[in-house]
């Protein structure tokens, strides 16, 4: 039986208050950086209105002010190719130009990915996208 580990979880918000919670855990902890939010915002309004940093701070709304810079529920598809010409199709629908689609974030699932230059098929493959996983593809090679 693994020993009990006591872990203190500190929650800090610079514009808000400070809250500390202590939880007891029994397994070896896995630590991960779940994301970093950096951004800028603009707001214009008329006071007075109820404002409390507890509800409106960046702590509770990562990305609220700065746009959702990363998508936690999606999987990434990277298209590594020196080719610039070509169009990317997902399940038969046009997704964009190959030169601009180096990274695609998709919902988990199975897709038919195709890269075509005019009528010429450069790359066709059925891909399987999983949450938080990165699929590296090299569209120069043909795949059944």
């Amino acid at each position, binding site marked *: 039986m693994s020993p009990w580990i006591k872990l203190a979880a500190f929650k800090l918000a610079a514009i808000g208050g400070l809250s500390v919670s202590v939880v007891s855990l029994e397994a070896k902890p896995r630590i991960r950086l779940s994301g970093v939010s950096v951004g800028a915002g603009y707001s214009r309004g008329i006071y007075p209105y109820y404002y409390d940093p507890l509800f409106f701070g960046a702590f509770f709304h*990562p990305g609220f002010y700065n746009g959702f810079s990363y998508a936690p529920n999606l999987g990434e598809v990277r298209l590594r190719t020196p080719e610039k010409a070509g169009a990317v199709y997902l399940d038969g629908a046009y997704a964009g130009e190959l030169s601009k689609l180096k990274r695609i974030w998709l919902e988990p699932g199975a897709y038919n990915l195709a890269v075509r230059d005019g009528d010429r098929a450069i790359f066709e493959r059925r891909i399987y996208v999983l949450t938080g996983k990165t699929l590296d593809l090299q569209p120069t090679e043909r795949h059944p």
Partner: protein
Amino acid sequence: MRVTTFLMSLAIAGACWAGIRPRTDSAEYRNHETQHGVTLAAERVPANQVRNTFATDLTRDYVVLEIAVYPDSGSLDLTPLDFSLHCGSQIVHPGNPAAIAARRQQQNAPRRSDVDIHPTVGVGYESSNDPYSGRRKGVYTTAGVDVGSGGWNDPRPASTDRDRQTMQQELEDQQLPNGPVRAPAAGYLYFPFPANKQKNVAYELEYNGPMGRIRLAVK
């Protein structure tokens, strides 16, 4: 009638989709054996190739074999359960895609002991009219670090139900076809690592189906 024809064509299309394209000749596989009017060919897929081929993480717990069957004439009724992998005195049968996907999802699911760290910083410009203090405008900054436990934050990689369905679909799509086969067919089978797995251990694939028994050393 039309509906039946449509459903039949869908079933045929589904059957054709399963598995992968067999190589033109069984000799292109590292190991092949012809007996009882059927040629069985197989080779072990190296771990780095498994990583590139599958989105599902199979390298830790499974030996992946690429298997091809070339019936000389007539039809052959294929099922993954006809195959087994011998490793010394141990015998393992191929894993079921649904069970493998469920196991992977369970392993990836958040645990109470997980710790997530999420720093946030921001800068903004604010402009407002306050009837009490007058016009307010200026730059504001925000910063924070969020530390939590128990997987409260974003879903862990490949841990959602949608991921499980996708993993199952991937494994089923690429598995050796299940059913009657008239033409060469190929696909992968996922054998759990035998207990006390060792490096460079000798594996032997056994087919024990309607066409008889074929044993094949797999490298």
